[in-house]
């Protein structure tokens, strides 16, 4: 508790009255017969970092995967309720999932670079979406994305080497660069630092803080320090319910909900 408080004071201030980027209303998810989410209603502000915290199995990753319909890839998953991106229903029949995922990018728990070169990893998205008309434009996108992901200095002289040869932290930043390269509006991050050492974690956290200027970010994390350091809004999940949502500072200093209080003071989770 002490060090979370300390982190908070250094952390970014809450910016009020941001426009809402994504909205969800009564989102219910079933995996087969098992209900994973019991009606989540949550607003995600634009160009802010929203952290989803909670004990394991509470549904935060499930919720995250609803936002860009990654749950579609799981046969048994059934999603009900409403999720809006800029007021548009993400689950409407006329929505192109492929286009949605280009607008709502994703970074996964375990760094998952493709077994290709660094350059090909980043240029993958722009190529399939036809974002570049020639080699110069593609180079430009790749270089910019790597710069934004803070990886340019480390890899600019070895873009042809396999992405799988990088260290874990570099791989994760490569995956972030890969996500940025398709110019998404929202980036979803599913415990992006859980497989990284503290130094790589710090680098990625700094990166998230910088990315906030241009992108709306939703991050699932198990580390409350991390939520406190990088997020402006925190949502606490518990057993498929949204226990509490509020400005990060308030959640960590003065939570309303008993479950949140117990969780952040380490009584469970």
């Amino acid at each position, binding site marked *: 508790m002490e060090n979370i408080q300390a982190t908070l004071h250094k952390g970014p201030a809450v910016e009020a009255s941001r426009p809402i980027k994504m909205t969800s209303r009564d989102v219910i998810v079933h995996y087969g017969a098992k209900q994973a989410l019991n009606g989540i209603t949550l607003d995600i502000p634009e160009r802010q970092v929203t952290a989803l915290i909670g004990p394991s199995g509470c549904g935060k990753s499930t919720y995250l995967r609803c936002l860009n319909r990654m749950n579609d890839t799981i046969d048994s998953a059934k999603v009900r309720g409403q999720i809006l991106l800029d007021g548009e229903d993400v689950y409407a029949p006329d929505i192109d999932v*492929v286009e949605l*995922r280009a607008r709502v990018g994703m970074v996964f728990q375990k760094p998952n670079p493709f077994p290709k070169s660094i350059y090909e990893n980043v240029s*993958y998205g722009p190529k399939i979406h036809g974002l570049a008309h020639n080699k110069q434009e593609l180079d430009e996108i790749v270089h910019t994305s790597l710069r934004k992901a803070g990886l340019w200095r480390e890899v600019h002289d070895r873009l042809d080497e396999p992405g799988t040869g990088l260290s874990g932290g570099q791989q994760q930043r490569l995956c972030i660069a890969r996500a940025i390269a398709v110019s998404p509006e929202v980036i979803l991050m599913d415990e992006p630092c859980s497989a990284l050492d503290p130094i790589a974690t710090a680098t990625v956290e700094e990166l998230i803080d910088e990315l906030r200027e241009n992108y709306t970010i939703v991050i699932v994390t198990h580390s409350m320090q991390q939520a406190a350091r990088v997020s402006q809004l925190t949502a606490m999940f518990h057993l498929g319910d949204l226990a509490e949502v509020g400005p990060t500072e308030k959640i960590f200093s003065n939570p309303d909900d008993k479950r949140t209080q117990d969780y952040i003071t380490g009584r469970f989770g």
Partner: protein
Amino acid sequence: MRSEPLVPRNSFGESAPVSTFTIILIVIAIGLAGAVMAYRRSRALVGKDGVKMHSRPTYHASFVACWGIIPALLTLAVWLIVSPIVISTNVSASFPEGVLADSQLTEGLAYGIVESIGTGLQVLPGDERATITDATPVADVTALLRDRGIPTASAATDWMVPLAIQLNSMQIWSRWAMTLVVFVVAVAGAFWAYRQIAPRLRARNNVERIVNGALIAASSIAIMTTVGIVFSMLFETIDFFSRISPAEFFFGTSWEPRFSNVGSSGNAGSFGFIPLLAGTLYIGAVAMLIAVPIGLFAAIYMAEYADNRTRSIVKPLLEVLAGIPTIVYGFFALITVGPFLRDLSAEISGLATGNYVSFIEAQSVLTAGLVMAIMLIPFVSSLSDDIITSVPTSLRDGSLGLGATRSETIKRVILPAALPGIVSALLLTASRAIGETMIVVLAAGVAANLTLNPFEPMTTITVKIVAQLTGDLEFNTPQTLVAFALGMTLFVITLGLNVYALYIVRKYKEQYE
């Protein structure tokens, strides 16, 4: 392990020798008895003033059982292998001087007759057996044996009777000696191990070493068998190449091994291997050309698109194809596919030129390739399906999460990642195609043509191996020996393919992970 027939009274024992199977059962019983005693003793030691045992009682029991059973069975195996060799050497050595030179018999043939008389004598009832002595003429013996329905060779002569009696007595003696020695070894082994039992005995580690040894023995049997197969072909191959020059074999374009009469040394015919190699590769290539895309697409569908329900139905159905014996595919080619292609080609040429002539023969490279492809599809799809499924889901998610469609993900991420595995699967499939015989015999015929036209018959190496080895032939001719040269060549080709497949997998594996 043949069980000995009942033998009546003889000079060495009052009862019949113990069968090998009984010996093994008794040895195992000795081992188990030792194990039970060891277990009790070990339990008793634990009870005594809180001694800490290194190993649990079950390990002491296994330790004693192993020492009781394994050395005894090894002795048994060695005895069973060595004693016939010793006996035959002894008996052959006492053949009378010069008798072999007088007759047309070789030493091995003569020994065979002696052995068969010996076996016959063992079957006779005791009173009849007693009438036969070293001096009994062979005609009386054969008459007796014929009454019992036992045939003997006409070449049997008088001097063989005493040798047969000697052979029998040596066999019985060896049998009793073996039984005794094996039991002594079993008891001694178990007793020695039993004496070793002590709190400090590392029975657990010893048992571990025995398990280790057993596993090594199992895998070396597989390897030794391969080596044995290679050697069995190697000597005949060398023999063949001493008669026909390798250059003629490897570069000859005509395959016409004439079957010369036994004993005559006429024209051996030509042994050009090229038409067979061409046929093998051509039919294999046609089969792969059809099987690879279909199998691969089926695999992609099952791994990436089909939901679990569909997959659980389609996959076993596809694998049923793999269980069909290839001779059945051969029937299918012979009575369905071949005639169909022939009639189809007649229709096509009729429509095109007005002249109803079938340009595809019923037995052709195309027929064989087509039917072989059907056989290969389940191999390609099953192997590729496993490989595609083993590509980590995180790569799939990564690509889908960037807004790629499924087919983009498969084309750009999954197939490149699975490529080394798929290539090696295809090479394994190719070596199956090259080794296939029955389909080719029935679908492409046995004519060794050298042609580029897929509508004509051709044949393969394996078909010709069968053709050269079947029938009533003298073994020692190039016509027969060529089969071994062909087999050896085929072995080298498929070995090369498999080694290359392993090399590719190793080379790309690191990149894959």
